[in-house]
C-alpha cells in the first residue's frame, strides 16, 4: 500500500457526496421575458442619460435564476450603462447605491471581465472596480467569492 492516500475512501461511504444541486441556492426562476423587459428598461433609462438610475434599477434583484442567454442580455445592458457614466462621476454613483446593489455591481464587473465584450472594455471595468472598492471596502469582493448566486 504505497499510495494509500490515493484511495477514495468516500466510495465506501453509503451516503457520500454532495451533488451540485445540493450546493445550488434556491434562486427564484426568472423567465427570459422578464429579463428582456428589465434589460429594455435599463437601456431606456441609459438612453435618457440618467445612468445612475439605470444602474440602481439594473442592480436591484439581479436575475440570478435566469438562463444563460438572458443573463448575457442583462449583462450587456448593464455594461452599456457603466460605459455611460463619466470617470469622475463614478464614486458618486457608487455611493448612491445601497449595499446590496454595490455587491451586485461587483458581481457584474467580475462577470463582465469573463466575457469577450467585457474584455474589450477592460480598462473601464477595472476603473469601476477600483472606485467601487475604494467606497465599499473589501466586503463585496468576499461576498462575490462566497456567493453561490452567480450572474
Amino acid at each position, binding site marked *: 500500500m504505497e499510495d494509500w492516500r490515493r484511495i477514495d*475512501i468516500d466510495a465506501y*461511504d453509503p451516503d457520500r457526496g*454532495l451533488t451540485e444541486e*445540493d*450546493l*445550488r*441556492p*434556491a*434562486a427564484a426562476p426568472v423567465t427570459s421575458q422578464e429579463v428582456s423587459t428589465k434589460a429594455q428598461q435599463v437601456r431606456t433609462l441609459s438612453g435618457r442619460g440618467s445612468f445612475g438610475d439605470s444602474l440602481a434599477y439594473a442592480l436591484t434583484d439581479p436575475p440570478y435564476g435566469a438562463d444563460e442567454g438572458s443573463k448575457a442580455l442583462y449583462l450587456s445592458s448593464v455594461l452599456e450603462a457603466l460605459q455611460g457614466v463619466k470617470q469622475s462621476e463614478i464614486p458618486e454613483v457608487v455611493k448612491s447605491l445601497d*449595499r*446590496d446593489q454595490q*455587491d451586485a455591481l461587483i458581481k457584474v464587473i467580475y462577470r463582465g471581465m469573463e466575457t469577450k465584450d467585457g474584455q474589450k472594455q477592460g480598462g473601464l471595468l477595472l476603473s469601476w472596480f477600483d472606485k467601487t472598492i475604494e467606497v*465599499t*471596502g*473589501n*466586503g*463585496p469582493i*468576499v*461576498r462575490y467569492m*462566497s*456567493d*453561490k*448566486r452567480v450572474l
Partner: protein
Amino acid sequence: MSPVQYNLITAPIYDHFFTQNGKLLAITNGNNVELYDVSGPKPKKLTVLQHHDKPITAIDISADGKIVTCSQDRNALVWEPLPSGEYKPTLVLLRINRAATCVKWSPNGLKFAVGSGARAIAICYFEEENDWWISKHIKKPIRSTILSVDWHPNSVLLAAGSADGHVRVFSTFVKSVDAKPAPSVWGERLPFQTLCGDYLTASGGSWIHDVAFSPSGDSVAFVGHDSTFGVVSPSDDPQVPGEFSSVPTNFLPFKSILFANEHKVIAAGHDCHPVVFEQTGSGWAQTAAIDDPKTAKRNEVHQQSALNMFRQMDLKGGSPAEGSSSTLLTIHQNTINKLRPYAGTGNVTRFSSSGNDGKVVIFDV
C-alpha cells in the same frame, strides 16, 4: 486598561483559554498543548500536554478543570488534572474518518461536542458502568464539515455552523446524563438528534466560521465567510415567524464571535482586530471597533534603521515605500482564530484573543 499581550510562539495558535482565575494560560502549539503560568511579569511554561500525533485544532476546559483537546488525528483526549500538577489523558474514540475541527464542553461539564470533517458531530459523555467515554453521532442532515459548535445554557441544545452554509440547532439529549430540559423557544420534546432550527442565508450559504448562543440561549449569532454577521431568534409562538437578521459588513470574514451580553457581540477574524456589533432598536449593526487600525498611529516609521531597510530590500526586492512598513497597525499581526471571555460575569468586560501570529492578547470591551 491597555491591552495585555503575550508573544508566545512563532506558529499559529488555533485555540487558547485562561483558567477561571486568569493565572494559567493554555494554547495549542502544533501537536501539543502548552500551559503557561501568567501570574508573573513573564509567562512561564509549566507543562506540555503531548499525546496527539497531528495538529490540535481546538481545546476547551470544563467548569471542574478537565481539559479536552481534539485534533486532525481524528481523536479527542480528556486531560484530568492530578494533584501533582500533571495531567492524565484519556482517549475518546470519536469514530470519525476525518479531522476533528472544534470541541466544546457543555456548561454543566458532563458532555462535550466535537465537530468534524466527517459530516458529523460527536456528542461524548462519560459512562460510569464501562468507565469509558462514549460518543454518539449527529449525522442528519449535515452535508459538509462542521466548523463550529456552541452549547445552549441548558446543556442539551447545541448550535453548529457548517461548511454547507447552514446554521443548525440540535438536541443532544442523552437519557443517562441529562434531566429533561425546560421547554424553550427551540421546542419542547427534544429526543437526541432533533433538528430544532435550520437557517441558511440568502446567498446560498458560505462557510459558517463560528456560532454562539446568547447568554439567555434564545438566539444564535453566527459569522460566515461572506463577511456577514447574523442573528437568529425563533419565537415561541409557532404562528409568529422568528427573526433572522444578517448584517453584511465591509470587513474581511470573521472567524470567531463572543456574546459580551444579550445585546452586544464581539467578532474578530481576518481583519486582525475585533469589532463590536450591538442590537439597537432597528436590529443589529456594527457600532465600534477595538484596536482599530484607522485610528492607530504608526510610530515605528521614524525608527527605521539602515539594517531594516536593507533587510526589506533583501526580502522584497526593493526599498520600502515612504511610510509603509511590514507590520500591521493592529496588535495582532495575523488572523485572529479565537475569542474567549476573560473577565466579567453576565456582562463580559475583558476578553482574550489568539491568532495565527502566535500571540494571545487581552482586550477591554
